[in-house]
């Protein structure tokens, strides 16, 4: 949540929003657990090894992959490498700054990364060219172009879509290009607490009013692979359990709709 953007919302609008949400409806008319319109443009960057533009309402992110050869980490000589990085571009919001990634950008990156990594979506053992010497490195770069809330879910959707399309440039080794082997489709669902309610896919305005954020990433195995309580604020255990159920339900729907 941008530092000094709280001021933007008047007390009146804030109370109006909370009142409305208490009655199960948001200011833009959505039910509490409904996402804004989702638009996914696959292969948006033809020159990349895989890419997607995802729009969640006005939130707009682009994920693009580069797949290059490199040395594996010392402790995992028989695994390829995935590195994921989110840039909160200064164009996306007035308070986002140029320069090295903020704490916020790093937290978002690490939550998105964990969901993908821990669901074992990518079988990195299939990315080895020469054990301990040469492996495929997958750089997942995600740029936030416009920030209107719910970056984690948008970035996870974009990264998962790009990875599902990704092609390993085997031809550089005199072999054939081949599709990146993919084993799971993790979906991150983030919920915000407004008053006593939990809502999904908060707009920026809703984020600013919320008093807590919780992300749950679940895969088709219905198991939890990543969670992150973010920002100031408190949750009861019951709220967490409810968030898990909601994430599971929405994850199934999104997976159905966007990943066959």
């Amino acid at each position, binding site marked *: 949540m941008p530092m000094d953007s709280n001021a933007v919302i008047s007390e009146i609008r804030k109370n109006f929003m909370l009142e409305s949400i208490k009655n199960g409806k948001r200011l833009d008319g959505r039910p509490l657990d409904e996402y804004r319109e989702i638009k996914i443009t696959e292969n948006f960057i033809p020159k990349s090894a895989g890419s997607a533009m995802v729009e969640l309402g006005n939130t707009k992110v682009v994920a693009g992959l580069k797949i290059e050869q490199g040395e594996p980490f010392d402790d995992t000589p028989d695994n390829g490498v995935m590195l994921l990085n989110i840039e909160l571009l200064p164009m996306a919001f007035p308070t986002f700054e140029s320069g090295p990634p903020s704490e916020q950008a790093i937290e978002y990156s*690490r939550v998105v990364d964990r969901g993908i990594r821990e669901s*074992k979506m990518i079988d990195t053992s299939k990315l080895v060219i020469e054990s301990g010497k040469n492996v495929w490195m997958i750089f997942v770069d995600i740029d936030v172009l416009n920030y209107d809330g719910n970056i984690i879910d948008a970035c996870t959707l974009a990264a998962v879509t790009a990875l599902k399309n990704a092609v390993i440039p085997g031809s550089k080794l005199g072999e054939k290009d081949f599709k990146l082997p993919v084993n799971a489709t993790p979906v991150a669902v983030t919920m915000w607490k407004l008053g006593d309610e939990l809502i999904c896919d908060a707009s920026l305005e809703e984020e600013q009013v919320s008093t807590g954020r919780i992300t749950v990433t679940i895969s088709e195995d219905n198991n939890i692979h990543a*969670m992150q309580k973010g920002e*100031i*604020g*408190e949750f009861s255990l019951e709220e967490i359990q409810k968030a898990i159920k909601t994430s*599971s339900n929405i994850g199934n729907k999104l997976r159905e709709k966007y990943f066959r």
Partner: protein
Amino acid sequence: MESNIKLITDDGLRLDGRALNEMRPIKIQTGVVEKADGSAYIEWGANKIIAAVYVREAYPKHAQNIDRAIVKARYNMSGYSVEERKRPGPDRRTMEISKVVTEALESTIVLEKLPRAEVDVFIQVLEADAGTRIASLTTASVAVADAGVPMRDMVVGCTAGKAGGKIVLDLSKDEDNFGEADIPMAILPRTKKIVLLQLDGNVSQEEFDEATSMMMNAIPRISEIQRNALMSKYNVEEGE
């Protein structure tokens, strides 16, 4: 990261002999950094962590909040604290930990009582052995109290996870490295509200419930150790 290490022995114990729901020993001591306004040192298993708190006017002036305090926790690791020498300075992992620890402390500090102030919480991990973030938060909370900063409640951290197919409390280093999941959590014991929660790995929703209830049971014991650390300081001071 995979391995053939058998994390749970045939008699249902862990490699270090603990039962599934058994914590490692914890020891907390306050007043260890003389120059700071408050400080605390924790030994949690083989973890050795020190936290020191400075309360001061936020600087520069335009960074002040006129109606409440700013909290900044910085989690930092010594070069010798981990297996491979750690280069000085923050990295992405330590920056994330600094953020979630800061947010957990902000949830309990009565910020309105300290307008224009900055509460700087410096955390130094001297020796790391799994669970450093919640051990850091647990000791930082004591240091904040030691500094006289008004708090709604102490923050108590704990981890559970899955290792060798079992849900276990307070992961060891091996369980963290070779187990299936890690769930750090911190709560305010009075209200049982959760102020830090992370998860990475692979657990079913039922296993998650088992892990959290195991942690909820452990919280009072840790809470008591915190209280005793603060008390023993006051006892000594009174006795002087």
